Structure formats: structure tokens, C-alpha cells
């Protein structure tokens, strides 16, 4: 089957799946089955976190530039698009609805909002990126953090977008939107990473000086990665703002940037699937810990009987919910102590693992300077193949 047909078929399947999932997660449900709103909300937030983690992974995981200002770009996207939807969208949508019908008009307007959010965030990324990418390592990190805080405080002082009281935004986002943009983000980042640009980015991560010596315009590629990454973060911000229907600058404090960093480090830096995994874990883990106490108690009572549980154990389990964030932090430290390269390292999760695991045992692989295996970067792209052929 030609590649194009294969891809179209895959796209069609994904779209159908998303629509089915969207129906499943809506209040109506699918064929009588549905997800409680609490879980539906968590799944949507996990999707937004996946976009954030995958986009940050492009700049931090693949290019090796340490940025902790992602929440700032998210805020830029969220607020700029919200400004559009709150002040202009309704009149535009009304006039468009006459020509195209209400549904299509709505979709177009929200697409426009997402586009505007991404572009403004990309511009912010460019403005922040050009000066700060002269800096390296921890200095870059602290400057990106500083920019994000400055962005947040500037937004806090704009009365048009609510200032300190918060900003009420129409709730346009549903699972379908988030799911679609998760897929789009992953496809974009996957394609970048598996192109010549991606090779350049990875070479900058492995050794910036050597990359420059090989003729790679490191500044250009770093700024490029930074801008794409912030545009995607802005997109996530648009989706987030129009999902929660309420924007407050407290949602974009530096702890949010830390959270995104934690996701990609937990999943494995420089691994796309790792970022997805990390985002999902970090979204669900604190919520799972919330119900840990009652769950343990019901387990215990089914083993030894409800009346035999000592009172001290009972109170301990009741109080466990208060300590969920403590347990979360302790787990985070524990994971870093036992698996410092993250869950997946730089490997990608794929079904071919099962096949390979049978064929050969774990062997020694060449390791780059940062302790990252170069051989594990996935198959070389088609472009590299043609270059090799030309060279012969």
C-alpha cells in the first residue's frame, strides 16, 4: 500500500477514534456508557499537559536548552486568545454564522483563536529567545524563569484581561479539540525530531561547540526550537483557558513550569513517548493519591474484616489524603534516586520492543557525553538515507 494511503487511513482512524472518545466522555455518553465528569476533566487536563510536555521536550529534551519559563508562554497564548474570544469573537461568530452555519462558524472562530494564541506566544518566544540563548545552562534557566514571571506580572497589571480578579472566558474546549491538538503536536514534534533539523538539534544537545564546528548554525536552530516550542505552549494555553473558562495569573506561576519540567524528566528527556507518559502520570498521580486512604481501608477490611481494623490505622488512613502532596514529592525524589534517566530514558516506547526483546539481550550501546545513548535516537530519517546513498 502506498505511504500516502496508509497515512490517510491512519488519520481517518484517529479522527473517528477521537470523535467516539469525545462522545464517550460527554455527558450523553456513547451507547449508554460514559465517563464521570471528574475523570473527563482529568483526561482533558492530561491532554493539555501532554501538549506542554511534548513541546518543552523539543527545547529541553532534544536541544538540551534548559528552559523553566514554559508557563509564561502558556499564559501569553491563553490571555491573547481569550482577549480575542471575549471582546470580538461573538460579533464575528454572529456575522459568520449567517454565511456558514453556526457550527462551522464556531469552529472557525476557535481555530482563529488558537492560531492567534500560538502566534503571539511564538513572538514572545522569539523576543525571549534571541537574547537569552546567548546564555548557557543554569543562567539560561533562571533567565527564562525570570521572563515567565515578568510576563505573569505584566498580565496581572492589564485591567482589560481582568488583572488580579481573573478573567472569565467562554468554554469552547472539549475533548475533541484537545485530542486533535495532542495528535497534531506529537506529529509536528515527531517530524521535526526525525528530520535534518532534528539531527541538528540533537547535535547541539550533545556538544554545542562540535555542532558549530560542523557548520551548524547553532543560534538559528536554538531560536527555531524555542519559537516552535513556545508556539505549542501557547496553543496549550489557549485550550487550557477555554476549558477552565476562567483565567487567573496564579495558574501560571513558576511552579507550573516546574511541573512541566518534572513531566519530561520523569518520562525521560529526549523521548517523545516519555513526555506523553510523564504528563499523564503527573496529572493523575496526585488525584490517585487523594483516594489512596479509602482504597487501602476497603482493601484491608476485605482481608481482615471492617471491625478488626485498629483505630490508629483507621485515623492514619483517613489523614493520608492530607499528605498526598507529601507522598507525591517523596515519590518524585524516590524515582529520581532509583531511575535518574526517567522512566523511558531517551528510548521511545514502541511495539517492536516486544519483538526485539526476544531476539537479542541488552547489549552495550555507544553513549554520548550527557549519558544519553546516541544509538537510541530512533531510526535515521529518510533524508539521511539519501545523503548516504549520494555519498557513496
Amino acid at each position, binding site marked *: 500500500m502506498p505511504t500516502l494511503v496508509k497515512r490517510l487511513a491512519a488519520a481517518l482512524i484517529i479522527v473517528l477514534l477521537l470523535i467516539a472518545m469525545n462522545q464517550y466522555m460527554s455527558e450523553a455518553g456513547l451507547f449508554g456508557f460514559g465517563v464521570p465528569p471528574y475523570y473527563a476533566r482529568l483526561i482533558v487536563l492530561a491532554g493539555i499537559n501532554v501538549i506542554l510536555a511534548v513541546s518543552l521536550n523539543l527545547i*529541553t529534551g532534544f536541544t538540551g536548552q534548559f528552559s523553566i519559563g514554559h508557563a509564561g508562554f502558556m499564559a501569553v497564548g491563553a490571555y491573547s486568545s481569550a482577549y480575542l474570544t471575549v471582546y470580538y469573537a461573538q460579533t464575528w461568530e454572529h456575522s459568520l454564522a449567517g454565511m456558514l452555519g453556526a457550527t462551522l462558524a464556531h469552529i472557525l472562530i476557535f481555530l482563529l483563536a488558537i492560531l492567534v494564541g500560538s502566534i503571539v506566544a511564538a513572538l514572545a518566544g522569539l523576543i525571549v529567545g534571541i537574547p537569552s540563548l546567548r546564555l548557557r545552562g543554569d543562567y539560561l534557566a533562571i533567565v527564562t524563569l525570570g521572563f515567565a514571571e515578568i510576563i505573569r506580572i505584566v498580565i496581572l497589571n492589564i485591567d482589560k484581561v481582568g488583572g488580579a480578579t481573573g478573567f472569565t472566558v467562554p468554554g469552547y474546549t472539549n475533548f475533541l479539540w484537545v485530542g486533535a491538538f495532542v495528535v497534531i503536536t506529537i506529529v509536528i514534534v515527531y517530524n521535526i525530531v526525525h528530520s535534518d533539523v532534528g539531527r541538528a538539534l540533537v547535535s547541539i544537545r550533545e556538544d554545542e561547540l562540535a555542532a558549530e564546528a560542523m557548520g551548524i548554525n547553532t543560534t538559528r536552530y536554538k531560536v527555531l526550537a524555542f519559537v516552535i516550542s513556545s508556539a505549542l505552549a501557547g496553543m496549550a494555553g489557549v485550550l487550557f483557558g477555554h476549558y477552565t473558562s476562567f483565567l487567573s495569573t496564579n495558574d501560571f506561576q513558576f511552579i507550573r513550569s516546574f511541573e512541566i*519540567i518534572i513531566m519530561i*524528566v520523569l518520562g525521560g528527556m529526549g523521548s517523545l513517548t516519555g513526555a506523553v507518559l510523564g504528563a499523564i502520570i503527573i496529572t493523575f498521580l496526585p488525584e490517585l493519591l487523594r483516594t489512596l486512604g479509602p482504597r487501602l481501608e476497603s482493601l484491608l477490611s476485605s482481608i481482615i474484616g471492617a471491625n478488626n481494623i485498629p483505630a490508629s490505622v483507621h485515623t492514619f488512613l483517613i489523614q493520608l489524603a492530607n499528605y498526598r502532596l507529601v507522598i507525591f514529592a517523596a515519590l518524585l525524589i524516590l524515582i529520581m534516586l532509583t531511575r535518574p534517566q526517567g522512566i523511558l530514558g531517551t528510548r521511545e516506547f514502541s511495539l517492536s520492543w516486544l519483538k526485539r526483546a526476544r531476539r537479542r539481550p541488552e547489549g552495550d550501546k555507544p553513549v554520548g557525553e550527557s549519558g544519553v545513548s546516541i544509538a537510541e535516537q530512533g531510526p535515521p530519517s529518510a533524508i539521511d538515507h539519501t545523503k548516504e546513498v549520494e555519498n557513496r
Partner: protein
Amino acid sequence: MDTFVQQLINGLTIGAIYALIALGYTMVYGILRLINFAHGDIYMVGAFVGYFLSFQLGFAAGPSLVGLSVVLVGSMIAAALVGMAIERFAYRPIRKYARMTTLITAIGVSLLIENLFVAKLGAAPRAFPQLLREQSYTLFGNAAISKSQILIFAVSVLLTLLLQWVIFKTKVGTAMRAVSFNLNSAKLMGINTDFIISFTFALGSALAAAAGVLTAQYNPQIDPLMGIITGLKAFVAAVLGGIGNIPGAVLGGLLIGIAETFVVGYGQNVGVPTTFRDAVAFAILILVLLFRPTGLLGSTVQEKV
């Protein structure tokens, strides 16, 4: 003119607090190249240890200089132990791993301390008992300086001088400088690097705890999340001065303290709202780093292939 002197005094007070905390950041960074994000929380722990000590030992009943000294020293010792424990159990096992891993661990430790305190003590602010009879002295006409401000200046100058003495005049200080120069070479020269790193954490944590108790005298409200923003600004101060550089940390702290107070005091005259108080530290940092990428007093490191 009077208000200017007054603003300067207030700015220097806050700056001295930032400087004390920044010293801990800069020492740990100088030795391990680790941004110890939990350091701001050590400052909070110091304040809380001081709070409980003053109640347990009965000093909360009335102001006394003895009580203040005991509480100050006690919380410094306790924080030093906490700092050493964090280093031993969280940072030492991951010392040789990638920078990102150590950073996430530091964030994890910070979250752990904050959430533990919130879960145990609640997030509501508590009033720190007054250990110093508050009194104001007039300076240059209308400017006033309070007793707690004098205390902050005196203690921070004393501690900074003490730190200089430890680092430059003692054997352990020489070892600290050797370790920060090159950890592996220092180890080869027979220096017990584990002990030196532990000692560095103890010193830095003690200074942060002192800052915590002193702030609580100046502004008697403490809560488990008070270390987040203050710690972050102190870290910015350390980077501003040139991270790893002791005089730089003090300079950076004082600069940021003064800048913040001036934004609150004079910002409105030039159209800068007082809420920019928290942004000014970052703005200065970015401007300085653009022209001096290693901070005000940091030395430029030539990268070699």
C-alpha cells in the same frame, strides 16, 4: 531626601535578608553546581524552629536579648542539621547524575518540605512572638531605623564576616575552596569531600535560618510557603552577583532589596505599579546577564574543547 534615606534603610534591610539566603545558594552552587531549590524552604524551617523554640523555652512571654540569642542560635543549629540530612539522603546518592536529575530532586525536596509543613501545621500564617523590644531611632531628620532593622544589619554583617573568616582563614575553608575549584582533584589530595560538602550545606542552612528568625522579628508573620518567593529572589541575587561568588551574593542581595523598595516607594511617580515589586529582581537580572553573562562579579569561564 528624608524619604530617600528611609527607603534606603528599608531596602538594605530586605537586601541583607536576601544576601544571607543567597550566600547558601552560592556556596552550594560553587561546590556542587547544584541549584538547591530547597534552600528557600530551609529559611522557612528556620523561622518555624525559632517560633517553636521561643514557645517551648518560654521566651515568647516577653522580649529578652538572651531569649533572642538562644532562639537564633538554636534555629541555626537545627537548620544546619536539616540541611545536612537533605544533602545526605537526597543529594549525595544522585551527585554524579545529570544536572536535570539533581534539579528535579531539589524541586522534589522543596515540595516535600513545604507540603509536610502545610499538612502538619496548616497553611494559615502564625504570629511570631516578639523577642526584641521594638523601638525606633531617628536618623537624619525624619528617617527612622527600628531596633529589628539594626539587629538585621548587625547580625548579617557579623555572619558574613564570620563566613569570610571560615572560608579564607581556616583549614576547612581552604578545603571548601579546593573542592569548589575541582572536586576530584581535591579528593586526590586527601580531602574528605563528603564531609566538606556536608559542612557547606550546614553553613548555608544556618545562614538561611538566621535570615528566617531575623525576618520574623522585622515582619512577625510566618507561614509554610514564605520561603518560595523569598528563596527565588535570593537565588536571583546570587546569580546577579555571579553565582559561586561570596561577595557577589551579598552585593546582589543588597541591590535587589534596594531596587524592590524603590519600586514600591517611587515606582508610581514614573508609572510603575507597586505590583512590579516582584518583577524588578528578574528585570535587573536579565539586563545584567545580557551584558555580563556570568553576573556582576562572576569570572568568565572560557569553554575548552
